[in-house]
């Protein structure tokens, strides 16, 4: 069990699943200076949003888009949003005998593409843009995962020919260079966070703000870009 230095509850961070692994690294780094307990809860951006408006005890919310943070502000649950990373997307194919990722135009006519669901997943919206732009992809059947991790898994297991996936996953899973193609920054997903109003009453020492401030440090920015995101350094 964590030994709490004081009576205060831990700093509770809610994070969209795609950023969780990166956040774990960030928290580990942050803890070298600040010894207080931090818990991380992850789920899809949509689920977290719903939990927050129903009173979930989170202090900071790392969304996978800007939409949900903005909504929270409109609802008076937070003061301002802040971008923390741009998620980058890549084309990825695990079918090693082909070269679909580099040359999507070689896809067969009965192709299947794995994407996150554009109806609600931020990475899905980006993927939809990619498909609209690359004509070779528009003929394919779309296999929609409920989030970007599922899209990656579909692709990795070769149940789809090609996936529009998060670059962070590609790096994390050490995918060979030949199997993916990192796409233009145009398709990046702007990911924003908010500090929730509730939080300020709970901690005397502005922990949430401290953590958010830490994100702008060089260390933090390096971790973020190493994980496959584009940093937001000013």
């Amino acid at each position, binding site marked *: 069990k964590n030994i709490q230095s004081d009576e205060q509850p831990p700093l509770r961070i809610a994070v969209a699943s795609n950023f969780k692994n990166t956040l774990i690294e960030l928290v580990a780094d942050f803890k070298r200076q600040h010894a207080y307990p931090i818990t991380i809860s992850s789920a*899809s951006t*949509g*689920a977290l949003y*719903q939990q927050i408006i129903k009173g979930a005890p989170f202090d900071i919310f790392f969304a996978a888009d800007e939409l949900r943070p903005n909504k929270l502000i409109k609802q008076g649950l937070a003061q301002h949003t802040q971008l923390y990373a741009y998620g980058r997307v890549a084309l990825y194919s695990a079918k090693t005998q082909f070269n679909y990722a580099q040359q999507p135009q070689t896809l067969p006519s009965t192709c*299947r593409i*794995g994407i996150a*669901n554009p*109806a*609600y*997943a931020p990475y899905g919206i980006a993927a939809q843009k990619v498909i609209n732009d690359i004509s070779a992809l528009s003929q394919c*059947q*779309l*296999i*929609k*995962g*409920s989030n970007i991790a*599922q899209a990656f*898994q*579909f692709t990795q*297991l*070769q*149940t*789809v020919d090609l996936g529009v996936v998060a670059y962070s996953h590609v790096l994390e899973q050490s995918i060979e260079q030949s199997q993916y193609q990192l796409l233009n920054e145009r398709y990046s997903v702007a990911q924003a966070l908010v500090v929730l109003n509730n939080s300020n009453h709970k901690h005397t020492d502005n922990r949430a703000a401290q953590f958010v401030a830490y994100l702008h440090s060089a260390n933090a920015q390096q971790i973020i870009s190493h994980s496959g995101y584009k940093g937001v350094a000013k």
Partner: protein
Amino acid sequence: MSFGSSELMAFWITFKLALLTSGLLMVICIPLAWWLNNSRSLVSRLIESLVTLPVVLPPTVLGFYLLMAFAPTTILGEQFEALTGQQLAFSFSGILLGSLFYSLPFAMQPLQTAFAQFDNKALDAAHSLGASPVEAFFRVTLPLCKHGIISAALLCFAHTVGEFGVILMIGGNIPGETQVLSVAIFDAVETMDYAKAYNLSAALLIFAVVTLVMINILKRKEQDYAKC
């Protein structure tokens, strides 16, 4: 409330899936449950436990492992593709297979309870009247265990209708083929189209209540003779 064609399609797929799943599970599980209840070997005890296992795995995780098994690189996926020319993952056959696996324990438990409480003495009478073991099973055991069988089929049906973690993973959400109602409702909630989620849920619940009330009244009518 009014529904678009994709929702009506989802209704239809859900219904078809649930019906096929519960039907096939009855065909598989009735003999299996009977055997498990009559065998005393350790193997049968082990199988009995294995059969309950799918229930302890979170559906999405089960779905993930099933997807691994369905991938074209596995024997199962390969053979299926060779046989049907179709991929197992993201097809109706795939979600059917997943549902069978997922609802198996909910078929087995009520069946085993029913068979365990069944009094074998009636079988002696059937045999003395010339009924072979198979005939006696169909004409005596099954009707006397009807309550448990209905209960098992009901649970399977309902459970398959509500299933979604597994299907989300191995179905791929293809409208008209693998997009079932539960996934459509989940999508609506995620899209924050709460009105649609609410309407679909309400329609599903009304359909379920009506079916269940009918079955329960039926069950009740025919039940009393069992207490002889």
